[in-house]
C-alpha cells in the first residue's frame, strides 16, 4: 500500500464531498459515529502530511490526532465554503507549521519503514542500482538524507513541497489551504526545489 495517494481535484463536488457534508451535519448534532467515519476517511492523508512535515512518527501521530480533535471542536464554525477535506487540511497544515516553528531547534527524526513495493517503484529503480549488494542499506541511507534535506527547508517551503510533490495536491488547492495566492505557491515550490536539489546533489548526480 502506498501511503497518501496523490489527490486529484478534491475540490470538485463529488459524491464523497456531498457525503462529507452529511457526515459533518450529523457530527454537529453529536453523532460520534459520523465523525468517526470522517476520521477513517481522511486519517491516512492527514497522518501522511504530518509525517512528511516532521519526519517523526510520534510527532505525526500527535499532530494528526490533535488536528481531528480541533476540527471536531470547530465543526460549528465550518460554513461549507470549501470542502470538508480542504478545511481539515488547513487545520492540519497550520498545526504542523506552528509545531515546526516551536521546535525549530529540537528536530529529531523517527522515520517509518519503507514498504516492500519500494523496490518496484520505477522512479526509484532509476536511482538505485540493481547490481549493488547493499541496495537495502542504500535505500535507508537515501531515505535519511532525503528527510534531513526536507527538514532544512523553512516550514512554508516544506509545506508546499510536501503538499505538491509528495501528496500531489494541485497549486490551487495548496493556495487555498495555506491562505496565499497561486503565484506564491509556485514561487515557494521553485525555491524549495532548488534548495533540495542543492542539498541532494550527490544523489541526483548518481543517476
Amino acid at each position, binding site marked *: *500500500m*502506498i*501511503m*497518501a495517494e496523490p489527490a486529484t481535484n478534491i475540490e470538485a463536488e463529488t459524491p464523497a464531498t456531498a457525503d462529507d457534508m452529511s457526515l459533518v451535519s450529523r457530527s454537529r448534532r453529536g453523532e*460520534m459515529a459520523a*465523525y*468517526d467515519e470522517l*476520521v*477513517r476517511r481522511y*486519517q*491516512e492523508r492527514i*497522518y501522511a502530511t504530518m*509525517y*512528511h512535515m516532521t519526519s517523526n*512518527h510520534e510527532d*505525526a*501521530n500527535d499532530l*494528526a*490526532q490533535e488536528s*481531528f*480533535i480541533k476540527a*471536531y*471542536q470547530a465543526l460549528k464554525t465550518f460554513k461549507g465554503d470549501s470542502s470538508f477535506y480542504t478545511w481539515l487540511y488547513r487545520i492540519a497544515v497550520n498545526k504542523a507549521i506552528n509545531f515546526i516553528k516551536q521546535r525549530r531547534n529540537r528536530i529529531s527524526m523517527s*522515520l*517509518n*519503514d*519503507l*514498504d516492500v*513495493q*519500494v523496490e518496484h*517503484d520505477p*522512479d*526509484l529503480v*532509476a*536511482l538505485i542500482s540493481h547490481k549493488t549488494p547493499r541496495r537495502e542499506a542504500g*535505500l535507508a541511507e*537515501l*531515505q535519511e538524507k*532525503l*528527510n534531513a534535506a*526536507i527538514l532544512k527547508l523553512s516550514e512554508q517551503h516544506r509545506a508546499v*513541497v510536501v503538499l505538491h*510533490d*509528495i501528496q500531489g495536491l494541485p497549486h490551487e488547492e495548496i493556495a487555498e489551504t495555506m491562505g496565499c495566492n497561486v503565484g506564491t505557491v509556485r514561487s515557494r515550490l*521553485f525555491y524549495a*526545489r532548488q534548495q*533540495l*536539489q542543492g542539498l*541532494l546533489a550527490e*544523489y*541526483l548526480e548518481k*543517476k
Partner: protein
Amino acid sequence: MSENDNNFEALRQLLALKKHEMPPPGYFEDFSARVGRRIRTLDEYDSRSTNEQFQETSPWLYRFLELVQARPALVGMGTVGAFVLLAAGIVLVNRPEAAAPQLATSLAPMDSSSSLDMPQTIASADFAAGVSNVDEASLTTGTNVSLQPVASMFGSGNSLLQPASFNGN
C-alpha cells in the same frame, strides 16, 4: 509538464521515496477510536473542570444553587420573606409622622448637657489652673470663645471648617 518541472525531474523521482514510508502495521486500525476517546475525555474534562472551578471560586454561591435545586419551595419562601421585610423597612422609614417624634425625643437631653458652647467654663478653668505663656486674648474672662473643631490635622485646611472666633461682648 512544464520546463520548470522538467528541471526537477530527478528530484521528483527521489521524492517518490517518501510515498513508501509506512507507519507500523495496524497503526490505522484503531486511529479513529483513539481520536474518539480523546474527544470524549476532553468533553468530560471540560464539563467537570468548569463545575469544579465554579465550586472552588464561589463555594457559597455553589451551595446556594445546590439548595435552590434541591428545595426550590423553601428557597422561594425565604426569598419572599426577605422581600417583605425589605419592603416593610422602606415603608416605615418613609413615614414622616412616625420618624419625627422619635428624633425629637432622642435629641432633647443632649441640648442641656452636651452643648459645645461653654466659653465661661473653659476660660475659668484655664485661669484657675494657672496656665502661663498664653496670650492676652485667651485669658480674658469676659470674652465669648466658641469651641469649634480643628480645621485640619494634616496641614491643608478644610474649607468647611472655620478657625475659632473671638467675639468680645
